[in-house]
């Protein structure tokens, strides 16, 4: 083996440092740029921008709350739908499925992840929306209509449709990552559990416990995509800045608002408002990620103790 010497090591280290710090710089630069561009609305509206419930560009009234609400609710709802399914698929693939079945299913899941979001959106308009309007909506409203979340008008376009589309889009990502995490758990642990007389179920619980932080990471990754999704959401959410408790009513998310309007904002104050709401999305993502990290830490600690 040729000697590279101490100098080579040093150069290598510096190169790596540059690569690593450039990411920090890029994030800081994006943040600074957005902050600077949104100063006009920050100055004019202050905190009211965050808590205002009216978004009327024509009258220069900008309140971001309906969009923050829509973003958070649609993302969390999609996680609620996607996480159990993804966990189920991943556990099946790693712990239960025979090799012959695991490979094609795994392949299909990865294929789902590669579908462009506009295709999900089209499918949402042409397939999912009619199904919700004609079957799911009336059934839920008929039986559970007394709950505010199932009230309102069932048009097929709205929060629930968007959340289901998002759930479909993030399921493959969460599944793929969870599968890799579970595969990384040493086989000796499963063998040890079986040796102590554990059932398959009990063994799986132990494996899940050891993989908890990785699983939580997968969920955060899925959440990131759900929060930032634009096109598919724009196509099915109804683009109405309202905060209705009903899941059937139209809503809007920050990413969807930006996708629909950014190219067309000619007005300085309107552009500033759009950039500020982008900044809000940045912060919402940051807070949600930080919150998820805390959750991961507490879960994995509890799991390790058990």
């Amino acid at each position: 083996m040729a000697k590279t010497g101490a100098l080579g090591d040093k150069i290598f280290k510096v190169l790596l440092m540059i690569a690593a710090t450039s990411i920090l710089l890029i994030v800081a630069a994006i943040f600074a740029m957005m902050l600077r561009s949104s100063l006009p609305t920050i100055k004019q509206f202050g905190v009211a921008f965050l808590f205002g419930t009216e978004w009327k560009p024509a009258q220069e009234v900008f309140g971001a709350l309906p969009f923050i609400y829509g973003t958070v609710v649609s993302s969390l709802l999609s996680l609620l739908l996607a996480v159990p399914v993804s966990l189920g698929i991943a556990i099946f693939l790693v712990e239960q499925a025979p090799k012959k079945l695991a490979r094609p299913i795994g392949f299909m899941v990865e294929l789902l992840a590669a579908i462009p979001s506009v295709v999900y959106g089209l499918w949402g308009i042409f397939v999912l929306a009619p199904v919700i309007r004609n079957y799911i909506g009336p059934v839920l409203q008929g039986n559970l209509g007394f709950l505010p979340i199932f009230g309102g008008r069932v048009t097929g376009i709205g929060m629930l449709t968007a959340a289901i589309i998002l759930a479909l889009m993030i399921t493959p990502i969460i599944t793929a990552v969870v599968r890799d995490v579970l595969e990384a758990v040493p086989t000796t642990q499963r063998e040890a559990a079986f040796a102590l007389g554990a059932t398959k179920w009990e063994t799986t619980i132990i494996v899940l416990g050891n993989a908890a932080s990785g699983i939580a990471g997968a969920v955060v990754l899925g959440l990131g995509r759900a929060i930032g999704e634009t096109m598919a959401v724009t196509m099915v959410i109804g683009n109405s800045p309202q905060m209705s408790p009903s899941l059937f009513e139209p809503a809007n998310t920050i990413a969807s608002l930006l996708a629909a309007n950014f190219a067309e904002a000619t007005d300085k104050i309107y552009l500033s408002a759009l950039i500020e709401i982008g900044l809000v999305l940045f912060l919402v993502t940051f807070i949600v990620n930080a919150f998820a990290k805390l959750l991961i830490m507490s879960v994995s600690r509890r799991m390790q103790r058990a």
Partner: protein
Amino acid sequence: MILKNLYITLFITAAVLFSFGCSGQKLGETNDGGDTGGTIRLQGSGSTFAKPMYEKWANEYGKLHPNVKIDYQGTGSGAGQKALLSKTSDFGASDDPMSDEDLAKGESPILHIPTVLGAVVLTYNLKDVKEPLRLTPETIADIYLGKIKKWNDPKLKADNPNTALPDADILPIYRADSSGTSAVFTDFLTKTNAEWKEKIGMNKQPSWITGVGIGAKGNDGVMGQVTQTPNAIGYVELTFAKANDLTTAQIKNRSGEFVAATPESVSAAVAETVAQMPDDLRIQITDTAAKNGYPIASYTYILVYKDQTNTAAGKALADFLWWALHDGNSFVEDLHYVPLPAGILSKVELKINSMTGGGKVLRQQ
């Protein structure tokens, strides 16, 4: 640990790609029309309504002049105005004329070149209603203001006595993006309905009443929602409705006639305004006084700087515009647009011939 790093990397890659994605469009559009290697490239963007027309013209013109490549992107009228102002496009396209305020933002004077005419139609999804629905400015306004909620509302029944209107909730669909179609639609309602004028007014991106209806992106988005959702109503450009065989409503004009949108009724509406055309050619022609005129019609414009910084590209642009309004006219009706009336064409010719490059007139007359 590897996995953790992996998802961090993925997240960051996504963030970086996203930020590039945001600026990508602008970079792609940056083109000052330089004559690289003998080929002149012209970049235009804006109006989605006029997109089929401009693409057809660009394509046909390219066959005749292989050294001129014209690329048109249907980004929306608002974006077209913005692209011209920021000089990321050689020409912009907009259905509604630029405001005085926006014109003042231009580095140098901007010309409005009307190209063709179109109409905004109301299309609806009522599968049991065969005959065309009759709507008045008042009922349209009330539907979009949330005052008429059901299809069998007495006001609608009064205008459509022979139609079996269902006892169903109306779902109004509107444009979620800034749009020339919305501008024309709200301009008509602002002129004809006092309550509309007070509550919403004329705007490319009106502030819709919260809780009434849903928004969709683009003419095709509105069309998709209407065709997919029973009992929905929406407004789209006539070309979209024609190309997709949508049922459209007859609209009551100022003379009290219910008129369907056809090339003839749009021509009638525009003929009546020829004399009123101002020198800068910016005009709204909704709410026509013509007896058989369709009341929600409009010009659509190409926007160019009067003085072109790049002489070669400017000359190509002026020649293209001239060709489009003369030889290119033969493609207009096939695509369901309405050509400019003769009285207007002569005014537009003067505008095209007034274009200069570096202070010199571009077209020799």
